[in-house]
């Protein structure tokens, strides 16, 4: 057991080290900019994974919390003289309060009904972004959102934004990994496996689900706020149903319940348009196909696939070594 925990800490430190060193090698490359978006998407995917991978509760309305974070932050800093950091905190707070309130009735629903209810919630929020033109700027968007700053240090270029976003992302990843191996994480996974048995063991399933839904909204809203302050322009189109599905795809492709899987999924989906430049227009077909095939044949996602391949290769090597000896 101790070995397993040590290994996990080692993997995380290695991952964090790579993340921190990457900008040195990518100086001046546009790829750094892509990595900023990968960071934001990883945050979002981890947030959804907490809900979907751990607790087994689907949400097709994640983009709404992302959007709430972005819009609350954007409106507070453009229409009022609010400091961006304060706006970020307020945005995350508001989104979590909303999630907490709607969490009780929504998470009473299961399976398909939960999927549809969260979808409905997402669309309602999207319509509000679109129609409250006086606040959000409506479909034409909200521009001129200020960058975050720490004293004289302004987060207005790729390198600075990279560190800003990835510090947050690494933090959330670490906390999520911690969470998964704690009492709360076990309770959530127990709900995922058998809600009835979990309740009989004294797990307050409803409260637990609402809690993790709230946390998920909180993280998504932070991602939204970071997004708004890095890109400085937001419009409702980024927070629609399609993006919720994209997030779902990230989590499924990467691997349900795996935090690094969420990173992998976010990376692939953020980079896919790059990969597919030769075959443009094919991306939506490929998303669909990936969702189907991975759910059917690789329930553990690509991370599961990688782990399995490593195992098989390791066995092969071991086997051939024994043969040679």
């Amino acid at each position, binding site marked *: 057991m101790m070995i397993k925990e040590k290994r996990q800490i080692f993997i995380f430190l290695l991952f964090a080290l790579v993340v921190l060193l990457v900008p040195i090698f990518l100086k001046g490359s546009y790829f750094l900019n892509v990595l900023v978006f990968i960071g934001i998407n990883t945050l979002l995917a981890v947030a959804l994974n907490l809900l979907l991978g751990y607790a087994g509760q689907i949400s097709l309305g994640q983009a709404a919390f992302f959007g709430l974070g972005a819009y609350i932050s954007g409106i507070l800093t453009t229409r009022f003289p609010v400091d961006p950091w304060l706006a970020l905190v307020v945005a995350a707070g508001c989104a979590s309060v909303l999630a907490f309130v709607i969490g009780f009735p929504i998470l*009473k*629903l*299961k399976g398909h*009904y939960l999927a549809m209810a969260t979808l409905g919630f997402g669309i309602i929020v999207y319509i509000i972004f679109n129609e409250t033109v006086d606040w959000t700027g409506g479909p034409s968007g909200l521009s001129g959102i200020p960058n975050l700053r720490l004293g004289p240090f302004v987060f207005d270029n790729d390198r600075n934004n990279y560190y800003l976003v990835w510090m947050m992302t690494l933090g959330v990843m670490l906390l999520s990994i911690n969470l998964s191996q704690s009492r709360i994480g076990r309770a959530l996974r127990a709900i995922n496996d058998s809600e009835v048995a979990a309740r009989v063991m004294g797990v307050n399933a409803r409260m637990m689900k609402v809690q993790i839904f709230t946390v998920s909204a909180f993280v998504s809203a932070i991602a939204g706020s970071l997004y708004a302050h890095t890109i400085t322009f937001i419009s409702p189109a980024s927070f629609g149903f399609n993006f919720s599905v994209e997030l779902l795809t990230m989590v499924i492709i990467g691997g349900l319940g795996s935090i690094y899987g969420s990173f992998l999924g976010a990376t692939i989906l953020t980079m896919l348009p790059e990969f597919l430049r030769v075959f443009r227009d*094919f991306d939506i077909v490929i998303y669909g196909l990936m*969702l*189907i095939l991975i*759910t*059917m044949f690789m*329930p553990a996602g690509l991370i599961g696939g990688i782990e399995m391949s490593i195992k098989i290769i390791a066995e092969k090597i071991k086997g051939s070594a024994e043969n040679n000896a």
Partner: protein
Amino acid sequence: MDNPSQLVQYILTGLSNGAIYALIGFGFAIIHNATGILNFAQGEFVMLGGMFTIFILSFLNIPLPMAIVLAIAFSTLVGILFERLAIRPLKNVKPLSLVIITIGASIFIRGAAMLIWGKDTHALPAFSGNEPLYVYGATIMPQHLWIFGITILIIIANKLFFSYSILGKAMRACAYNAYAASLVGIDVKIMVLLSFVVSAAIGSMAGIIIAPLTMTSYDVGIMLGIKGFCAVIIGGMSSGLGTVLGGLLLGLLESLGAGYISASYKDAFAFIILLLILFIRPEGLFKQKETQRV
């Protein structure tokens, strides 16, 4: 224009949209009741119906009714392929995987349609002319009569099929208890496949009869599918009168909401109703007895 005829117009508009929602809702209910799956790709059948008809018409020089029959056949084929390739091989039948697979299928079908037919919107000629009919100072298109007529026909056919035919009864048996059904010799797999066939056929039919009014393109399926789902939830997951009432109610609320409150929030009304019903009365407004499931 005086107020009463304005109201009549809202009601007519609402009812005709509602009939469409009901028809799409049927497709959901049939698959859900036979398999427990909520097919998120249902809206794509609606899209396929319209698109196939338009492209058959433009490639083959055949009369409209022939094209419609062919289009329904092709859409049904897609439904069969979907069931055989993505639903039946699935071993791990958790609702979550089914949600994801049907979402995946919906994206895939939509994407394929875009690649094959392009992104343009297309119009189908109306079945019987474009001259509006007047009803108490309000108007309605002849195509609306087709929609009402076909909806009624499909309700009746459904009722007859599920109440009197052996196949329909077998499908209902599966819906109650698949295991027990298999014990009395019903091939459950065939019944599941059949539910996809029927539902794809009805979905594409809906897509065809609305195409002359609303036009069609590769991405019409999402919103129509979701509205159909709202109808079926309001009606309580039946493929009978409940869903029809659910659809009509939804259509009416939308049209009256757009007319008297705000058109901008028209869709929001639909979803607020959906959420309220899911929260307060998840079994639907018109659900009668447990025995009326199929």
